[in-house]
C-alpha cells in the first residue's frame, strides 16, 4: 500500500499554471521571511518567550494547504507559523500575536505556539506534541456527521509518532472512513534526537497497520507535495477515507530559537547540504526559471514585495498596544 515516492518527479509544469506557481512561491517566501524576522525579533529581545521556526519546511505547509479549500480544517503544532500562514493568516496579526499584542490572532493570550484562526479553517497550533491529532480527527468526524465535504489535515512532526493518541485516532479514522489526512513532517529530529534513535520500524507501516493509505514523498519539492496532497485530499473528500503522508524535510534552525549550538546532534555539513541542495524555494524557483515559466527578476520582485510586507507587518505589531491587564479574566469561559 505504501508508495515510496521519494524520488518521484512531479508532473511537468503547464504554462497556464504560472500564476498558481508564482503564488505558491510567494507563500513559501512569506513563511521563510516571517521566520527570519521572528528569529531577529527574538535575538533583539523584542519577542517574549521563544519560538520554533519552520524555515526549511515551507513546501509542506504550502503544498498541502494549496490543495485545501478555505472551509477545510487544519491543526498545527508548536512549529506552526508556516501552517497558519499557508492556510491564510495575515502577517500583521501573526506578528502581533508573537509579540503578545491585543491585535494578535489570540489577543495576546496564545502566543507563537497557539495561533488559531477559525476564519481560515485553522483550528489552532498546539504545544502538546501529538495533542491535536484528536482535534483534527474530531473535525473530520464532525464534517462527516454534518454532511459537509470538508477535509481535515493534521500536521505533526515525526516526534509525535511517539504519542499513543496518534494511533488511537488513526484507528478510528480508518474504522469510520473519516476525511482526515495525517501529514507527518519528518524533519529528522525529535527536538535534539535523530528520529532513527526514537522510531522503530518503518514510519508508513504504522499507518498501514490501520489500513490507512500511506505515502512518503520528498517534502522539499512543493509541486510533489501539492500533487500528492491534492490526490489524497480529493480522495478523502469523496468519502474514501483517511491517508497518511510522510514528507521528508528539514528544519534549518534548531528545535527553538535558543537552540544554536547543535553540533552535538547534527553537523553543520548536513545543515548546509539541505540549505544549498534541497531548499524548497530554490527547487521551485530554479525549475520555473529553467523551464522559462518566469525569470529570476520576477522571483526577486516577489521577494522584495514580501520583505516590504513583512516590514510593515512587524511595524504594525510593534506599534500595537498590549492587552489591558483587565482582560486576563476574559475568555476563560465562553
Amino acid at each position: 500500500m505504501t508508495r515510496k515516492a521519494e524520488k518521484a518527479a512531479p508532473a511537468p509544469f503547464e504554462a497556464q499554471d504560472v500564476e498558481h506557481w508564482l503564488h505558491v512561491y510567494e507563500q513559501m517566501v512569506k513563511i521563510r521571511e516571517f521566520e527570519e524576522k521572528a528569529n531577529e525579533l527574538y535575538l533583539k529581545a523584542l519577542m517574549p518567550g521563544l519560538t520554533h521556526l519552520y524555515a526549511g519546511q515551507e513546501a509542506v505547509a504550502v503544498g498541502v494547504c494549496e490543495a485545501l479549500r478555505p472551509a477545510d480544517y487544519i491543526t498545527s503544532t508548536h512549529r506552526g507559523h508556516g501552517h497558519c500562514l499557508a492556510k491564510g493568516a495575515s502577517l500583521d496579526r501573526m506578528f502581533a500575536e508573537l509579540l503578545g499584542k491585543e491585535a494578535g490572532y489570540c489577543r495576546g493570550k496564545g502566543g507563537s505556539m497557539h495561533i488559531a484562526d477559525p476564519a481560515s479553517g485553522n483550528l489552532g497550533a498546539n504545544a502538546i506534541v501529538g495533542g491535536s491529532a484528536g482535534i483534527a480527527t474530531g473535525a473530520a468526524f464532525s464534517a462527516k456527521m454534518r454532511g459537509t465535504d470538508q477535509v481535515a489535515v493534521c500536521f505533526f512532526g515525526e516526534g509525535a509518532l511517539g504519542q499513543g493518541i496518534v494511533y488511537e485516532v488513526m484507528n478510528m479514522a480508518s474504522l469510520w472512513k473519516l476525511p482526515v489526512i495525517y501529514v507527518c513532517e519528518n524533519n529528522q529530529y525529535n527536538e535534539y534526537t535523530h528520529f532513527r534513535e526514537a522510531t522503530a520500524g518503518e514510519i508508513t507501516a504504522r499507518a498501514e497497520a490501520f489500513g490507512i493509505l500511506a505515502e512518503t514523498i520528498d517534502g522539499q519539492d512543493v509541486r510533489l507535495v501539492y500533487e500528492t496532497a491534492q490526490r489524497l485530499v480529493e480522495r478523502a473528500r469523496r468519502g474514501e477515507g483517511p491517508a497518511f503522508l510522510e514528507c521528508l524535510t528539514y528544519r534549518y534552525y534548531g528545535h527553538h530559537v535558543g537552540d544554536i549550538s547543535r553540533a552535538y546532534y547534527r553537523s553543520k555539513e548536513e545543515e548546509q547540504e539541505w540549505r544549498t541542495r534541497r531548499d524548497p524555494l530554490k527547487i521551485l524557483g530554479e525549475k520555473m526559471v529553467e523551464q522559462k515559466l518566469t525569470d529570476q527578476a520576477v522571483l526577486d520582485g516577489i521577494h522584495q514585495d514580501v520583505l516590504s510586507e513583512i516590514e510593515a507587518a512587524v511595524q504594525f505589531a510593534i506599534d500595537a498596544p498590549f492587552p489591558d491587564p483587565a482582560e486576563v479574566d476574559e475568555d476563560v469561559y465562553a
Partner: protein
Amino acid sequence: MIGVTSLEGRMAERELTFAEAIREALAEEMRRDPRVFIIGEDVAEAGTPFKVLSGLVEEFGKERVVDSPISEPGFTGLGVGAAMTGLRPVVDLMFGDFLTLAMDQIANQAAKIHYMSGGKMKAPIVIRTTLGATRRSAAQHSQSLQAWVSHVPGLKVALPSTPYDAKGLLKSAIRDENPVVFMEDKMMYKLKGPVPEEEYTIPFGVADVKRPGGDITLVATSSMVQVALGAADKLQEIGISAEVVDPRTTAPLDKQSLIDSARKTSRAIVIDEGYERYGVTAEFASVIAEGAFYYLDAPVRRMGARDVPVPFSPALEDVTVPTEETVFQMAKALCGRS
C-alpha cells in the same frame, strides 16, 4: 427529603431512578438538538456496563450513539475536535479513574481552547463519568477525582446528588458553551426520586439547600449528600438541626450559599468523596473560613476519602469514606455534645 426546596412542593409527581433521569436528559437533548451525539466504550447496544444508556441507540441510531474502541484519549480528543467544529458531543468515560487517561485532552485541549484563541473558538463538550467507592471495585475503579478537574480553569464540573438534579444539570451541561465534566455516583444509579414530566434545567453555580437547619451546616457533594441527609436525620433525634447544602457544581462554585449557611449556623462540616488532602473539601473549607470567620463557633471540619488508594476488601474499603455515622459523630462533637 430529596430536593425539597428545588421541587417546591411537587413531591407528588412521578419518580425516576438516577440512571433513568440521566437517560431521559440525554434523549430529550438529542431530540431537541441534532448536533448532540454520544461516544464512548459500549455505549450503543450494551448501554454501558451500568445500563444507563439502554435504549438510546434504538432511538437515535449508531451514528449518534457511537461505540468507540477502548481509547479514552482518542475518543475524548475526537470529541473535542467535533465540539470545536459545530457538534455537541457527550463523551462517556466509563469510570472516573479513566479521567487520568484522557486528561491531556480535557485539561490541555478542551479547557484552554477558548482562552488560548482569545475567545474565538470553543469546545462545548460534556464528559460524563463516574465517581464513588464501596462498590468493591478496588483502587483503579473507585476514585472520586472531581478535585482534579475542578482545579483547571476553563472546565465546569457538575456533581448531581439526586435524579432531579441529574436531569436538570445534564441538560444544562449539554447546552453549555464550555467543556463540562459531569460526574455521576455509580452507587446512586438505582436511587429513586421525583422528576417532573415537564421540561426544566438547573443552572450551574447555584447551590441547593437539601434540608434546612439552624445548628450546623453540612456541605456535601454527590454521593455525600445522601450521607449528610442520613446524618441530619440522626442529629435531629438528639436535638441538633443540621442544614444540608449541596453546591451541585464545584466549578462554578456558589460560594455565597456556603458562606450564608455557615454564618447562619456558626458551624460547618464539608464532605466530599474525593481524597481529603488538597481536595474539594479544602476549597469549601477555605471559602467558609474566609467568608464566615467571624460567625464561626468552631473550626470548619473536612471529611473526604481517606488518603489511601481505595482498597478492595469490604472490611478495608468501608472505612475509607465518610458515612452517616462518622458525619453524625463529627457533627455532634462540633456542636459540643459528647
